[in-house]
């Protein structure tokens, strides 16, 4: 996969503007990060539907609830740690009411390397997926980002979209993204299944290539819809492959690896599973790639985990 690398975060504003041009119910809420989040163009085109809430994340989330209560579709776009962490009880209360609020969290996992552990959102999947009613989608390319936002607009209820600030290969899968469905990116055989969440697409692709070069024939899976998750698909996978490895730009506690384990642990027999992600630690400052490498997201770790589960 020698595709051009693109920053998915840079496309958020553009895609929201596309939908907003056809649907005047769409609002964007910001907490003083419109420039970093590349949503300034929305503010310029739709100033009345752009709500600058100031650096007040909790209140911004509740304002989104109020806007949704009037039949509109607010997207609260912010760093993942703020939209899922700082505003967690506000999000939970919105979800309890099943309000039509949409959250886009970017600077996820260790994407914001230099800012350090305070800003690394390694818990956002865990924080949102435990809340009833909230759907969780993780796009890995521009087409999936557009599809995730489309799904969010069409779905009545809260949706969290996890968008990487890092670069991802600009691939386009033909298959249309669907709520509750994962995607088989490449299927060479049943030696293993490597399951990644969209923000760690780049390292997952590279590791899959390395495994291919080593002669292993496995499957590369893009989880895409973390909630609802395609349980039947995961179960079938665990019946067919020799081993499963999950890759996530997130803590291994409560993320996609945990979610898959929750499904498989109910069975007597299933393929063994190993997890790649941040162990139960706080990270540190550094170049994003270097931080990710140090905290588990490196080819050697992924390949070695795959080899261990195939034994």
């Amino acid at each position, binding site marked *: 996969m020698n595709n051009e690398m693109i920053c998915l975060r840079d496309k958020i504003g553009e895609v929201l503007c596309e939908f907003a041009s056809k649907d005047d119910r769409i*609002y964007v809420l910001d907490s003083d990060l419109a420039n970093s989040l590349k949503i300034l163009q929305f503010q310029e085109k739709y100033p*009345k*539907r752009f*709500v600058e*809430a*100031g650096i*007040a994340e*909790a*209140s*911004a*989330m*509740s*304002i*989104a*609830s*109020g*806007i*949704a*209560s*009037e*039949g*509109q579709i*607010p997207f609260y776009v912010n760093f993942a740690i703020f939209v899922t962490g700082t505003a967690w*009880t*506000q999000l*939970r*209360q919105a979800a*309890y*009411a*099943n*309000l039509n609020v949409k959250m886009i969290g970017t600077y996820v996992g260790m994407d914001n390397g230099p800012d350090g552990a305070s800003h690394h959102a390694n818990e956002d999947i865990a924080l949102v997926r435990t809340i009833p009613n909230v759907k969780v989608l993780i796009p890995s390319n521009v087409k999936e980002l557009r599809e995730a936002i489309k799904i969010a607009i069409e779905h009545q209820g809260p949706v969290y979209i996890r968008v990487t600030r890092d670069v991802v290969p600009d691939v386009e899968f033909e298959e249309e993204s669907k709520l509750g469905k994962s995607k088989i990116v490449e299927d060479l055989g049943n030696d293993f299944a490597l399951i990644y969440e969209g923000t760690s697409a780049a390292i997952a692709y590279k590791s899959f290539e390395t495994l291919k070069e080593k002669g292993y024939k496995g499957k590369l899976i893009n989880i895409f819809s973390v909630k609802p998750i395609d349980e039947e698909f995961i179960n079938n996978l665990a019946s067919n492959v020799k081993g499963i490895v999950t890759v996530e730009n997130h803590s291994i506690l409560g993320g996609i690896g945990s979610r898959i384990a929750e499904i498989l642990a109910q069975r007597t027999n299933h393929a063994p599973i190993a997890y790649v992600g941040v162990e139960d630690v706080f990270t540190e400052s550094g170049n994003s790639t270097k931080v990710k490498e140090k905290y588990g997201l490196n080819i050697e770790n992924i390949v070695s985990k795959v080899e261990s589960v195939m034994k």
Partner: protein
Amino acid sequence: MNIKELKLLANNNRKRIIDMVYLAQTGHVGGSLSVIDMLTAIYEIDVNFTSEKRSKVVLSKGHTTPALYAVLNSKGIIKDEEMSSFRKINSRLQGHPYTGTIKEVDATTGLLGQGLSIAVGMAIAKKNLNDNNNVYAIVGDGEMQEGQIWESLLQAAHYKLDNLILIIDYNKLSSYNDVNESMNLEPLVTKIKAFNFHTIEINGNNMEEVVNSLEEAYKIKDKPTAIICNTIKGKGISFMENNPKWHTGKISEEEYEMAMKELKEEEDRINNE
């Protein structure tokens, strides 16, 4: 509805509150009794359930559902036979306001501090949608200690939300203590005025003052209004008034009889005005 009729309705709503909390043997009676005059007036004057576009009420001090349910019962939205199901299993009448079971409840609340922000969002959307109705956020004085309230005070004023009316039920008692002893709010009116709100301070248990304050708020342009209602927790029931014990609690049969007797006497007094 004239002032006398509003007073009688508020008194009847007090009976409904006492009934509910007595039957449930749980519920927040004190703060429901302090806020009921304002809540009764708002729903009578400005909330038209038959209209698709209408004014909305966010009961941010969500623990005072007995007051909200009393009003909705008076409107026929909650049936008499449902009133005994408050806080019980399989009931529409959840402990805190929940839009999922009663569509006429305008906001799911309960976690203190969030309701004014929700009202800000409603008010922003209403302006964009050319909906000239109002949005009310009803906030408790203890709740004013929540940080999010001050975020939303900034935002409401920043957006010049003259369709937003903040009601502060200043009954001076929070869950067990004098609210200003647990964390001093004073000078409260000065602070809110400094946030660029139009402020009105009233006796929130005086129906004339309640109605006049709402009429004044409707005339204010380019800024939100805050009505600071000095009230008495447990208002209307002598042994509950200003007694922190009645923040939440069970009402015995004897206490129930006493409370209902006092409310009957008050009804007679209003009728003879």
